[in-house]
């Protein structure tokens, strides 16, 4: 353990100003969508107050991924045509892009690679949820997949100076990268990600997806399925080399999580083989 590094990380995460911000509209929309009493109009009005988000979500709603064919030119139309959950996902995409679409130095990810990785995992996680008849969690699988690595945006600054030590720990102790991060720096990128989501006041299920994506079985019971789906989608995308960084595949593949998703080996291989085509859809969100 490197106590100075740990202290420096603590000082960053305890100072809310130093954690990344997103437009407040995203937090408000996430919480409004969870309220069964809320009206479409209230949500449309809320989104429309933020001009930049409005422009961006209309672009997203017309992308090959979300589009249902008809041109969507207003937030009201978007909600009616695509549904509340899809529009909420588009708002989160538009709001988090600025945070994730960056160079992530310590993990050796060039500009845009962490963003692309998140998009691929999001699209794949949603696909798995729908494939397994879990339509009710498809939207959180998508957003959980999108932001699962957000903690890397902060931790990367510290991984940069400690990478060799972390790798040595991985090799010597035969432990996954995440455990070595914690060993050397006192924190892993999942924990930092959860702090960021707390700042954003995101719901518990998304916090769990970020906090436990490498160890889904430690997630609270009620979120374990979503987290497992994100875990499997993340593993498949890393295996395909999408947004794979210096931490490579030194991440645990958890068999119990695969079981929980009820994906058979043949289905997993099919999803893996389908990544190039799925990627074409995901690329329309970039």
């Amino acid at each position: 353990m490197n106590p100075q590094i740990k202290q420096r990380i603590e000082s960053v995460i305890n100072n809310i100003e130093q954690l990344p911000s997103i437009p407040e509209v995203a937090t408000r929309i996430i919480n409004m969508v969870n309220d069964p009493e809320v009206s479409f109009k209230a949500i449309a009005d809320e989104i429309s107050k933020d001009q930049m988000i409005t422009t961006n979500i209309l672009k997203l709603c017309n992308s090959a991924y979300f589009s249902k064919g008809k041109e969507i030119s207003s937030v009201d139309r978007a909600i009616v045509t695509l549904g509340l959950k899809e529009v909420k996902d588009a708002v989160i995409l538009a709001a988090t892009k600025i945070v994730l679409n960056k160079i992530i130095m310590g993990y050796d990810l060039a500009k845009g690679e962490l963003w692309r990785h998140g998009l691929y995992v999001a699209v794949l996680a949603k696909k798995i949820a729908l494939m397994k008849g879990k339509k009710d969690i498809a939207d959180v699988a998508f957003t959980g997949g999108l932001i699962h690595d957000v903690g890397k945006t902060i931790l990367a600054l510290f991984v940069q100076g400690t990478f060799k030590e972390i790798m040595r720990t991985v090799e010597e102790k035969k432990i996954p990268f995440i455990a070595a991060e914690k060993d050397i720096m006192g924190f892993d990128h999942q924990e930092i990600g959860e702090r960021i989501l707390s700042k954003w006041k995101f719901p518990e299920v998304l916090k769990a997806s970020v906090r436990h994506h490498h160890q889904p079985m430690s997630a609270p019971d009620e979120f374990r399925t979503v987290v497992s789906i994100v875990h499997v989608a993340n593993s498949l995308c890393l295996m395909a080399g999408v947004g794979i960084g210096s931490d490579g595949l030194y991440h645990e593949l958890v068999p119990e999580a695969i079981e929980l998703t009820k994906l058979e080996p043949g289905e997993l291989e099919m999803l893996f083989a389908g990544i190039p085509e799925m990627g074409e859809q995901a690329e329309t969100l970039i």
Partner: protein
Amino acid sequence: MSTLINIGVAQVGTASSPAVLRTILGSCIGVCVYERMKKMGGMAHVLLPSTVQGGKPEKYADTAIPMLVERLLADGCKKEFMSAKIAGGASMFTFNSSVALAQIGERNAEMARAVLAKYGIPIVIDDTGGNAGRVIDFFLEDGRLKVKSAGEEKIYYKL
């Protein structure tokens, strides 16, 4: 200036000196074939070992490698001047080696070796396995291969 050509997942590309072919690998295999007299070569980024009905041939080692070799032969390359370098085929970290998904990398490497052997193309470098991702650059001016993985760089010159 040499041109950098990115080879995406499930793509096959050929070019000649001084182009550089690059790809990023996890469990996939980058198969690099070089023809030293014409200074031409190509790369296949394969996802899985063998073809399933109706799948795009570029995805699978048993169809993508023949595609690559045939394309080079069609451009006038000769088999006797060809050699291959393969890289990638990593697997996720697992405490239980029986997870099928964790074996894709090794199966990919085995199939790549078998198909190249069938063509009689020697594999001069086999940088596969482990848990690290790899970024590979294949330089067609001299057939050297740069493998960047887990923060370290190796350059293979053997032909």
